[in-house]
């Protein structure tokens, strides 16, 4: 089974571009399943269900979505195998620009949108820097010049990635994304595989439910602003 991890900030159009790429692959008879990771709620699983795809929805609640992802990916992978899928696509929202949900030797796709501003690619961490493919969306509403500067900056942030422009509404560019999906390698098991970079750390009292604002309660990985 092929495994593909797709990540991107909220509302960049992850679901739309996946849907457009997947529609082409379904026509070729490829059996695809989706795991949607989100934090509080998501309606996107309904969109996938409409395509007739098997869907799993995982809500991380008050946990970091990345940590939740990595603690569940094995089960999700096995679910996909159990459903005799040819391709399992996981979709997860990167909330802090520091996310790094990619696994070594598993295709990692980052979705970013042109509206984020031309300098944003330089601000995004491993989620963009360590992706294999970067899909840029919402090019239909910004100027050609901004699209060019934006993809240039994505290329500077991640010179190794294949960069494609995808229109989540018309599907322009989705064929190229589908091409990379198909090129993804077969994965026998995710057990023992390593993620590409350490996840954002979260080990302060507030991670485990502290609510009081007070110096005396700061323990563990608390960091102070430099003033």
């Amino acid at each position, binding site marked *: 089974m092929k495994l593909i991890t797709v990540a991107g900030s909220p509302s960049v159009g992850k679901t739309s571009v996946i849907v457009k790429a997947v529609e082409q692959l379904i026509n070729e008879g490829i059996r695809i399943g989706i795991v949607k990771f989100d934090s509080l709620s998501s309606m996107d699983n309904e969109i996938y269900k409409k395509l007739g795809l098997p869907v799993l929805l995982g809500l991380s609640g008050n946990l970091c979505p990345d940590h939740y992802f990595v603690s569940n990916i094995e089960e999700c992978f096995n679910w996909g195998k159990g459903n005799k899928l040819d391709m399992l696509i996981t979709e997860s929202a990167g909330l802090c620009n520091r996310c790094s949900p990619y696994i070594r030797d598993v295709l990692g796709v980052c979705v970013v949108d042109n509206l984020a501003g031309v300098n944003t690619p330089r601000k995004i961490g491993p989620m963009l820097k360590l992706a294999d493919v970067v899909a840029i969306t919402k090019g239909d509403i910004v100027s050609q010049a901004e699209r060019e*500067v934006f993809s240039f900056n994505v290329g500077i942030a991640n010179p190794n990635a294949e960069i494609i422009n995808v229109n989540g509404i018309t599907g322009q560019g989705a*064929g190229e994304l589908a091409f990379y999906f198909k090129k993804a390698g077969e994965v026998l098991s995710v057990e023992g595989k390593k993620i590409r*970079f350490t996840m954002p750390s979260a080990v302060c009292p507030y991670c485990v439910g502290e609510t009081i604002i007070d110096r005396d309660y700061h323990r563990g990985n608390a960091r102070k602003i430099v003033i």
Partner: protein
Amino acid sequence: MRNSLANASIKEVVNYDTSVAEFLSSLGAGGQHGSMGFREFLSGLDHDFLNDVGMDREQIWNYVNQLMSRVDSLKAQGNSRLSTLTIIGGRDKKGNREDVEITLRTGEIVCVVGPTGSGKSRLLADIECLAQGDTPTGRYVLTDSEKPQYRQRFNTDKKLVAQISQNMNFVVDLTVNEFVSMHARSRMAENVDGIVSRIICCANELTGEKFGPDTSVTQLSGGQSRALMIADTALLSSSPVILIDEIENAGVDRKKALELLVKKEKIVLISTHDPLLAFMGKRRLVIKNGGISDIIESSPREQYNLSVLEKLDFRLMDIRRRLRSGERIEEALTVTWD
């Protein structure tokens, strides 16, 4: 230089390109490190710092290496040259054979007509990704009469199609000068100031309302924005094919704009139902049910009609101009068709 990254000093790496220098400065490396080796600098970075950067030593090493190759290839490539683009028909939405083969040449204007949803976007998408029978339409697209190489198909730095449409806006909060300079630098232009002033000057020739280099791009009017987009695309974009999607008449001299693009040896595709624009193309592709159903050569009669419509348009534009300058329009207007 790249081969010897292992022996390079921080100074040498920083001097390679501004993008490399910017990255190194984000790691706290710069001139003050002088002749310190890059390798030595990396091994001195502590674990917590690397965690914040979001890359380990090996990833930083590879990144710098790849960034340098990217800079090399961007500098080497220049503009993509293309003389012809050939579209070989596939099938329409109902699976009927699309029996066409059409070759577009640089400096040519071709119009694309057809109702919304007829498949205009699909056609553009096919051109953009240089379809090889592997898109839903089954079309083939050849560059200079040949099958494109794999790298050409999927090379982002050589995007084939640049697009300008009515609902595109500038979203970046910069002045015209700052923004166009940024674009020029990303295109590795040699004389940034020169090209920027040429673009601004050219855009001003296309629009009725002049603007200066210090205007914020988000404050430009619709016409000014369109004019700047066209001038910038003509002079700076690397794409040999330009798609123009329904550009309104207001505030931009479309005839001059098209002449500019044609002069810059672009293949210009215009998706429009505005007769003034549609007749400017010598040929029109008619799209129905997802396929090219006809290719119409514009006849001498249509070209004559264009001249009549142009006169009419000129009168309308003149009335606009007068309205803008506060005049009354009270003379008895008459319409004659010649």
